[in-house]
């Protein structure tokens, strides 16, 4: 297997422990020049610990890190950079208020007599970015460009600063498909130039699309390293989870139909400039999936229904009687619940405890003049921590200390505590590990069985297929088609999303 040449980076029996936990246990890892090496594992597997040991953010307890055969020991990010190891994170770590050129050259601007040579700097930036196929005005602020372009600028800076090894920590998490392709083209070009690239992501498709080798960690131990060409998707998932995961590729439960009566009905419901008027009926115990690209109007649909952005046309009915839905408070009163997409900014209150986060919506519905008794809060919190298997050492632990999947479950618990009749989930599985995905999916199915109506927005089409009774496809701020029964499969959804903007009769 091993090529005769010296690997660019080799890590031997790296160990790192934190008080009470062994985060890395004798992990071996090699990175060759000119390869993309995917690093996979569930949350807590040790991926980020390994990366942080490489970039100097953590000091290792034992083990060797060799760069081109020489022992190295980076003490901080700058030392790692000087050694040739650069990192790009999921959230773009650049300054939006500075120009593109300033961002590329911050701290190393060309100077003469102490004065920055702005023209030279801009020319350098222009030349640097043109190698990445970006021809943009480098004197504009970074914030005037899309996240994908910012991500590429971040890559350009990291490569320019370090030049041997590029670590990409979930760089595609907030990009849409077209933007991902843009970033991948650049990653491939860098691979051609002989860089070693470590790629961390949650998206298995992307792993297979771009990586040459794959290393899987689990619970701080190395599970194995494989050539991407030699491994099946299901084997990879097995390596990551350590057990067969039947839910990962669940087929759509053929022709399942919800027999419940129509619970909520929206007619010509819409908001100018946000989402075109749509008609929607949801039965009891029915899960309706919403598919579409980023910005197509899928989140907007949820926001208009929940009243985050009040509708300006049409009306809503519940069990046949008129419903006033012009704000979240009214929506909550009408039995609705909404777990927003970006839980970090819209959902969790990180400094409040798990218990406080769970009872938040219930308390809001009761009004602040009637506080929930402490004992009742504890009972509710414990019930949901148990029921949803929220992994926390303590119900009083601040929610921000929990992993992404567990935070998501806590938000779900918040809405479930209000006994909603209609729950809207926007990207319930975004940014959480594969194992937690399966649990969320199971939970959705269980809610349906309990008679809750669900509207689930997701860009994970396989998941939509797995749990939806119907799938609504949104494009250009319009509900363009609806798939039911046998029609629900990823191919059909993709075809509906990708179809020409011309009016069509997909029914």
């Amino acid at each position, binding site marked *: 297997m091993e090529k005769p040449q010296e690997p660019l980076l080799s890590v031997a029996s790296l160990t790192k422990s934190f008080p009470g936990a062994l985060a890395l246990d004798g992990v071996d890892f090699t990175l060759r020049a000119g390869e993309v090496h995917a690093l996979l594992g569930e949350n807590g597997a040790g991926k980020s610990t390994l990366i942080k040991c490489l970039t100097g953010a953590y000091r290792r307890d034992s083990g060797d890190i060799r760069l081109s055969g020489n022992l190295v020991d980076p003490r901080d990010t700058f030392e790692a950079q000087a050694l040739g190891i650069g990192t790009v994170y999921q959230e773009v770590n650049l300054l939006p208020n500075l120009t593109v050129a300033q961002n590329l050259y*911050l701290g190393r601007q060309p100077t003469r007599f102490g004065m920055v040579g702005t023209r030279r700097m801009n020319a350098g930036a222009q030349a640097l970015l043109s190698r990445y196929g970006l021809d943009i005005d480098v004197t504009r*602020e970074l914030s*005037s460009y*899309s996240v994908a372009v910012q991500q590429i600028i971040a890559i350009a800076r990291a490569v320019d600063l370090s030049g041997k090894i590029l670590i990409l920590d979930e760089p595609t998490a907030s990009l849409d498909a077209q933007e991902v392709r843009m970033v991948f083209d650049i990653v491939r070009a860098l691979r051609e130039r002989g860089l070693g690239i470590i790629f961390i992501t949650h998206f298995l498709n992307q792993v297979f699309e771009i990586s040459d080798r794959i290393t899987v960690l689990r619970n701080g131990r190395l599970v194995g390293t494989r050539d991407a060409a030699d491994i099946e998707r299901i084997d990879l998932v097995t390596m990551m989870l350590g057990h067969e995961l039947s839910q990962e590729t669940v087929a759509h439960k053929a022709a399942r139909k919800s027999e419940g009566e129509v619970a909520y009905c929206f007619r010509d419901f819409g908001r100018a400039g946000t989402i075109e008027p749509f008609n929607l009926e949801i039965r009891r115990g029915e899960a309706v999936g919403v598919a579409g690209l980023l910005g*197509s109007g899928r989140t907007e649909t949820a926001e208009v229904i929940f009243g985050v952005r009040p509708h300006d046309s049409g009306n809503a009915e519940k069990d046949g009687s008129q419903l006033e839905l012009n704000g979240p408070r009214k929506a909550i009163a009408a039995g609705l619940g909404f777990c927003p997409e970006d839980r970090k900014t819209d959902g969790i209150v990180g400094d409040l405890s798990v218990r406080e986060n769970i009872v938040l919506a219930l308390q809001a519905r009761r009004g602040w003049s009637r506080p929930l008794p402490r004992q009742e809060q504890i009972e509710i919190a414990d019930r949901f921590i148990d029921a949803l298997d929220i992994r926390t050492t303590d119900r009083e632990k601040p929610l921000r200390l929990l992993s992404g999947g567990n935070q998501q479950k806590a938000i779900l618990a918040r809405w479930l505590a209000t006994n909603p009749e209609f729950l809207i989930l926007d990207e319930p599985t975004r940014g959480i590990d594969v194992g937690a995905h399966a649990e969320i999916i199971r939970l959705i199915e269980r809610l349906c069985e309990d008679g809750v109506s669900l509207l689930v927005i997701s860009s994970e089409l396989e998941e939509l297929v797995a749990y939806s009774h119907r799938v609504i496809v949104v494009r250009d701020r319009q509900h363009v088609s609806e798939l039911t029964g046998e029609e629900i499969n990823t191919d059909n959804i993709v075809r509906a999303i990708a179809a020409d903007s011309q009016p069509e009769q997909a029914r």
Partner: protein
Amino acid sequence: MKSRYLPLAATILIFVLAYALCYAQFPSMLSTRVIGNLLTDNAFLGIVAVGMTFVILSGGIDLSVGSVIAFTSVFIAVVLANTGLHPLIVFAVALLITTAFGAAMGAAIHYLEMPPFIVTLAGMFLARGMAFVLSIDSIPVMHPFYDTLQSFYWRMPGGGRLTLIGGLLLLVFAIGILIAHRTRFGANVYALGGDAATARLMGVSVGRTTVGIYALSGLLAGLSGIVFSLYTTAGYSLSAVGVELDAIAAVVIGGTLLTGGSGFVAGTFVGILIMGLIQTYIIFDGTLSSWWTKIVVGVLLFVFIFLQKGILWLSARKTAALHHAHGS
């Protein structure tokens, strides 16, 4: 036009319009005499506002500068009255003290992780208190060197006088603009104002920059105190009360975002000119109370706060539109 130039353009537009209105009513306001006086009368405020611009650009605030001006003027007056030291030496000592004072506040802000508001509030009381310790009286400065300095001026065409302190104001602004836009330190100041945590990850030495910013503000407050001393030829511990707020107002009217990271030193200059222009108009009019300055400055501040919000809103919408262009 790039959106970051918008507040500056608005400031310049307001200044030109205001000046045109003044000119329409009092044609003699458009003369080098008026302009010369405007620079001289606002020299101490302008110099301290340059330091304030750096502080606000970095996302901080410096409430101590008014007190530091008072302290400096009292210090100079007391030392000159009681020793035979040459004023230049006294000036140098005063600048050393105020720079160290600013640096100490910067260090406290960075290393103790205290909000600038609290640290410089403490600095404000401290400096004012030290001025009172030196003397509670108004001490006149009588020194031949002061007379020499005051006799320096350049007669502009049209008969206006560009005095030494007026010239110093222009020089400080020129240097300030160079530092802000043409040095690594300047770029670091903007970087801190953008996002301190990210700036640190990108290799900006946050501690050194923070100390540098407040030291610069202290230095310029000291220089402003010297100018104030030359302007009033006295030192009084109750003088320059509220100057820090005037300086902040000039910075904001000059188009700098109070949250930091965006703005121009040149904008502050126009901000100072606008505030000076209002005062000059009131003097020309002769019947208006000087409180009108405060009222107009208040209104202008509101206008600029709305303008900044509007620009933020517009750019957010533009970014959103960009995303949709990609998404669909």
